[in-house]
């Protein structure tokens, strides 16, 4: 059966040109880039070329590119790396004391609250939220900004939350579930201005997770005004297991994987040269015909959204209708549980994903849909279709020919009928997962 794959935000097929670029380094070019001999030198050259390509596309210097194993590692490195470096700065040195000492020591009374502060959003990827929660446990303050009903952070909110103790702002470039694009350049400007008024240190730094955005949007770090940027090969037709963290020169960062001093001593471990080469090639390919492909996908996306809403009653688009990635369609099809629809459409050759609790390890529904202020029912019914290079109008028409009748069948199975105008947050009385509920609420730093 022909498959219509609409989960490109989860994984993309490997571009054959990237695969070809990699092949040599799996077989004949196997040296360690650290070797001084012929085999080592050749691989070292390939690594340098890849770094040059990535740096050029980001508008960065080569020594600002740290190759990692992917998006999650880059996010962890940026957040823990900045936080742990800050914890050693004099103004925050109290953090190096054991936690139990804070409450009673004289120092803590002299400096009532000098804990380093981090700003992020409620709808970040777990690769950012997870480290932030860990740092909270370690005594850092974290502000989780609300994102509003459209799924776009208000730069003014960022401005209002900055304080002398803020060390890092981490806001994703485009959301992985609903594809909404954040005003990164604007926030970058705000942070720069705030920093310029400070005399003691250069905090806060600005990190953006651009894993979803990199294949579609401008990722020039100077245009964006970011100090750190996460990118990932697997979301742009490169190999899984490769990514990079851009770090602006001079910004303090503490290595999280310590070993043989690779990657400017910021990420130990023998460089995964074949994957890095494939990553650089994939990034290069993604820049070609970007505007053209974006236009094609945007037209398809808008057609798909309009037709779903026309053909299926009680559907709600999640996230801003236009300030979203060209390939992202996220709709809540009310009264339908996501997993059931995924499996029914899978049987008809269609692949997509859902924010329903039933498909997650934690049994929590999508924290992103909840962050928009939507009721739990909307999260269980949220469906994400992400288009890609191979997606055609015929594919979309096929989905549109199957989707309405499947939805109708599942609605006939369902005993409920959710009010489409429901605004207030419903509260589940029994809830399998516990984790995201706390996260869905924003915690404000005082």
């Amino acid at each position, binding site marked *: 059966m022909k498959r219509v794959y609409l989960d490109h935000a989860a994984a993309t097929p490997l571009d054959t040109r990237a695969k070809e670029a990699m092949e040599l380094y799996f077989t004949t070019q196997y040296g360690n880039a650290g070797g001084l001999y012929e085999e080592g030198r050749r691989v070292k050259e390939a690594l340098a070329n890849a770094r040059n390509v990535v740096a050029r596309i980001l508008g960065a210097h080569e020594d600002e590119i740290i190759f990692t194993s992917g998006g999650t590692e880059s996010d962890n490195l940026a957040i823990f790396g900045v936080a742990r470096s800050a914890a050693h700065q004099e103004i925050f040195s109290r953090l190096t004391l054991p936690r139990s000492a804070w409450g009673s020591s004289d120092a803590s009374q002299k400096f009532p609250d000098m804990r380093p502060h981090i700003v992020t959003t409620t709808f970040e990827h777990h690769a950012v939220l997870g480290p932030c929660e860990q740092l909270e446990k370690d005594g850092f303050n974290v502000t989780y900004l609300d994102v509003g009903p459209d799924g776009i952070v208000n730069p003014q909110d960022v401005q209002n939350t900055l304080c002398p103790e803020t060390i890092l702002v981490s806001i994703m470039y485009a959301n992985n579930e609903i594809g909404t694009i954040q005003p990164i350049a604007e926030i970058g400007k705000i942070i720069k201005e705030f920093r310029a008024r400070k005399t003691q240190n250069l905090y806060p730094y600005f990190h953006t997770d651009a894993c979803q955005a990199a294949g579609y949007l401008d990722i020039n770090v100077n245009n964006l005004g970011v100090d750190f940027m996460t990118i990932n090969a697997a979301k742009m037709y490169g190999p899984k297991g490769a990514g990079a963290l851009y770090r602006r020169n001079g910004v303090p960062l503490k290595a999280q994987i310590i070993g043989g001093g690779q990657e400017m001593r910021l990420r130990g471990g023998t460089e995964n040269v074949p994957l890095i080469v494939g990553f650089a090639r994939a990034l290069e390919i993604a820049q070609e015909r970007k505007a053209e492909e974006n236009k094609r996908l945007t037209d398809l996306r808008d057609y798909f959204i309009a037709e779903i809403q026309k053909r299926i009653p009680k559907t709600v688009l999640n996230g801003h209708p236009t300030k979203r990635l060209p390939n992202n369609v996220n709709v809540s099809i009310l009264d339908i*549980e996501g997993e059931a629809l995924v*499996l029914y459409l899978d049987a008809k050759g269609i692949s997509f994903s859902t924010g329903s609790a039933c498909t997650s*390890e934690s049994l929590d*529904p999508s924290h992103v849909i909840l962050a928009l202020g939507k009721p739990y*029912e909307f999260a269980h019914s949220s469906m994400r279709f992400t288009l890609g290079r191979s997606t055609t109008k015929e594919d979309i028409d096929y989905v549109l020919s199957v989707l309405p009748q499947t939805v109708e069948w599942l609605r006939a*199975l369902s*005993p409920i009928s959710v009010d489409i105008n429901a605004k207030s947050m*419903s509260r589940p009385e*029994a809830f399998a997962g516990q984790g995201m509920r706390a996260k869905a609420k924003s915690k404000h730093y005082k």
Partner: protein
Amino acid sequence: MDVINQHTGEAWYYSDIVKDHFFHPRNLLLEKPSNENEFDAHGMVGSPACGDMMEMWMKVCPVGRAVTDRAVMVKQEQEVRIAELKWKTFGCASAIAATSMFSVMLTENGGMTLDNALKVRPQDVMMRLGGLPNRKIHCSVLADKAFQKTANDYFRKTSQYDRIRVDGARVIDPRLNITDKDIEEAVLEGAQTLEGVQKKLKVGIGSPELTTEIEQLIRFYKEKYYG
């Protein structure tokens, strides 16, 4: 069927039986009954917010009699068989398949007696389904709970109060075996006064000493859900 978890990439496998019941659910009620008396009992558990919700309808017939003899009044204390068990579910594949299998088990071979049906455990359903992934086990518990509710509704309607079983709820009216959860549901269904709740549940009628507590509970749930 091979399902890949989108967050962990971990694979789990639904058995062919699960797949069959998911794609071809048995005893599904497509249209909700228009007439309240079409079925002998009704029960509902879960909530759409939790991502799982189940509704069940049951018809019974006296032991040893065919369904067509339903005109014969079911006498108190007389054991009955399940003639029909219909359901609707908002839930995942496991919930749909488990409910479907549960309804088959209770109605096959002429239908179980209520006593035997209440002894069917979620594990028995799982066994018939050929197993469920660990994190999906709670989905099969829901069918069990929905049936307990349905049976309780039947016992209440036939005044067999001593046969009503409730889990984890506090009994408010021991005579009728009515719990705080029943009162909560009555309020959720729109009853806002003692009179309204009594219309639905008969709770506290003839036991004036319970009135204060019942009124307090009604106030509490009213504030919780409407306040």
